């Protein structure tokens, strides 16, 4: 399978910040079995501070599989009163979400701006 050394750079980067009363969790890279726990941990931590809403910005996600979908479903179902908004303009996220019908469950946005100020 070619080089078997671990990559020098991780395949995912998760950062969290607040915009007013909203927590924004930004994910770049690949969401799969190996990396999904980092996103889940950031969502849990972000939720714990009691934001008005939690925005999961997946604009820079290049790959997401059913491990990521399961994480999104769990985050959605445990969001309770606090809405979970997902920013996902690209097919890497949109396609698996749509193919599994999860677009009817998740609040999806094309831009962070739209997610921060939904109509």
């Amino acid at each position, binding site marked *: *399978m*070619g*080089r*078997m050394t*671990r*990559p020098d750079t991780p*395949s995912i980067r998760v950062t969290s910040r607040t915009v007013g009363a909203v927590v924004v969790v930004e994910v770049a890279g*690949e969401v*799969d*079995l*190996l990396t999904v726990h980092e996103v889940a941990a950031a969502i849990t931590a972000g939720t714990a501070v009691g934001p008005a809403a939690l925005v999961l910005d997946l604009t820079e996600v290049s*790959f997401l*599989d*059913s*491990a990521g*979908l*399961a994480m999104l479903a769990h985050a959605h179902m445990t969001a309770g009163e606090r809405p979970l908004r997902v920013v996902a303009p690209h*097919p*890497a996220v949109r*396609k*698996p979400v749509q*193919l*599994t019908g999860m677009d009817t469950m998740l609040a999806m946005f094309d831009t962070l701006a739209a997610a921060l100020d939904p109509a």
Partner: protein
Amino acid sequence: MRGRKVDEMATQEDDAVLGNRPVAALHCIDVPATGDRLSPLRQRLSAWAAAVGMSGDRIDAVILATDEAVSNVVSHAYTLARPGTFDLHATHHPDQHQVRVTVHDHGHWQPAERDPGPLHGRGLVLIRALADEAAIEPSAAGTTVRMGWQVA
């Protein structure tokens, strides 16, 4: 890596794009069924599919479907106490206008617990939606997932 790498990717770029000659097969044998293998495998398969001349959308479909099959092996075919391996074969059949990707493990389906796992849920849905043809073949010797895509 334990095991053999049988073939390397082809470099006959022009013929690969035209699909006149088959791109050399990608064989990954005895790959450890661990999560850290997913990303390198996706990259390898992506490069192979590009060499075949598949379009970007089709490559994405091959990558995601194969990732689901492999992820299922990582999740369910073995136990933490007894980690196992899987084989992946990607083959190009220009005379039949087809690429095939096969994932074979040597383990046993674990009983479904609270979390039925990717292939018992969305993973299988994705494979069937993304591949032109898909077959899941469990047996006492392991499970084989066969996926096929039409190519020009």
